[in-house]
């Protein structure tokens, strides 16, 4: 019971952290942010690893389910972070471009 309540406390606090961190974001970064949070919920990969990691002698169905789960989770994590990085790198390039634009004027 206690560990369950402790987990609920963690969930509530994490929810507030999520609200607090995100509430001040410029419009410009909404798409990368959506993509970034999307990558972070790839944390579900851990669940797939744990389930397959703790079962002994999985049957064929179990093997298939867990394998697909791990593949899906990995795609979510890796793809999510890579595509976010690609989006953001376009913003990074802008700093020198901006200063040269200013010189033009």
């Amino acid at each position: 019971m206690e560990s369950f309540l402790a987990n609920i406390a963690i969930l509530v606090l994490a929810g507030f952290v999520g609200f607090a961190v995100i509430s001040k974001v410029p419009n410009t970064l909404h798409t990368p942010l959506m993509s970034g949070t999307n990558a972070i919920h790839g944390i579900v990969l851990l669940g797939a690893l744990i389930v397959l990691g703790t079962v002994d002698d999985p049957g064929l169905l179990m093997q298939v389910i867990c394998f697909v789960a791990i593949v899906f989770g990995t795609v979510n994590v890796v793809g999510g972070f890579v595509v976010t990085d690609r989006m953001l790198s376009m913003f990074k390039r802008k700093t020198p471009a901006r200063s040269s634009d200013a010189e033009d004027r």
Partner: protein
Amino acid sequence: MDELVYGLYIIAVALFIYGLMGLTQPRTAVRGNKIAAAGMALAVVATLIEIRATSNWTLIIAGLVVGVALGIPPALRTKMTAIPQLVALFNGVGGGTVALIAWAEFLETDRFTGLDPAHGLVVPVVVASLLASIIGSISFWGSVVAFSKLQGLLPGRPISLGRLQQPVNILVLLAAVAVAVVIGVGAASTGVNPWWFPVILVVSGVLGLMVVLPIGGADMPVVISLLNALTGLSAAAAGLALNNVAMMVAGMIVGASGSILTKLMANAMNRSIPAIVAGGFGGGAAASQESTGDRTVRSTSAADVAIQLAYANQVIVVPGYGLAVAQAQLAVKDVAKLLESRGVEVKYAIHPVAGRMPGHMNVLLAEADVSYDAMKDMDDINGEFARTDVAMVIGANDVTNPAARTDPNSPIHGMPVLNVDEAKSVIVLKRSMSSGFAGIENQLFYEPQTSMLFGDAKKSVSDVMEQLKAL
């Protein structure tokens, strides 16, 4: 070793939060994303340490390798214009993972009857698993529909059962809950037939399809964001079932942040989230379409556009998804540069939902090296149209429709739009007279000061460029 794993989880979670904080500022965003990725790597390593005694290493490594091989190429190669559907897809597979984990849990624990009460309460674990399976499955199938609509595999218009839609959706939801209750009650005794679990996944999947199919293409960004938040919540539920702190915290943070983002996007379109989920956007379009049937539009030439632009004091470019599809960002930037060298002030008016997601257009323009300072938000620029000589609308449609302000019968009435019609002259670059993503006519095209330059956006802009150089 358990302490080590837990310690690593705490560090990973701290990195997620720190990384997310970085992601909220342009300057630190790239670093923030890398920090979050490092946190994820740490969390995966910690989990591999936790399960080090397993006999299933081959399958685990194979799954990770296949996942990396499938995930990286599309992330690197997909065009920036197709990013929204890619995010939908990545979100969907996350939801799918959660649903599959819950199924595996169900099988592994002998239909939930093998849960050990010493490891915490059994009831919350069963409830959390069932919740995770329902939400995960909804998220997976909903994302598949969102992906198909944006990719053009399914028509963007709402596909619905009309009035029956809501009652049917509620019935399907009740069916999913009923199956969950059957499994839950069975878990308290000797368990249920193992095939009940695929049933819950299928029923929830049907619900995911039924909820997203009736939603029009224009609302799709909000839907993706909503599904993103849902996947986060399902990850938190799965974490609760597995008693895994990293999953709980990361999932919950995504659930919370995704909800805020969804609300911000819905606000930008003046739509409420319940109204979007209730669906049927664009259904009332037929009535207002008929009234515009007898009006004519004025078409113009690249030479005329070039002259107008060259003798303007201020030009506002209104980019839309059409610009992105035609890959005309660079051409537009070149025209802007040439105009600026002749003393014309050029600004970009960016509607919050220009493109397909908030900030999508900023990403696309940044790709073409457009200066950050020249991109103006809707609220900053709307007052300026009245003293602008030429507003050049490139591939944007619904976000410039004055009907949103003036016509109470329009389906988009009340949506904040760019006041393009206030400019002295409006030039619309468009492929044809077809309607926009929301499937409704744009009154702007029939205004007296509006002229249309038909053709592919990139080619039109290049033609204008040639004419400008000749002037």
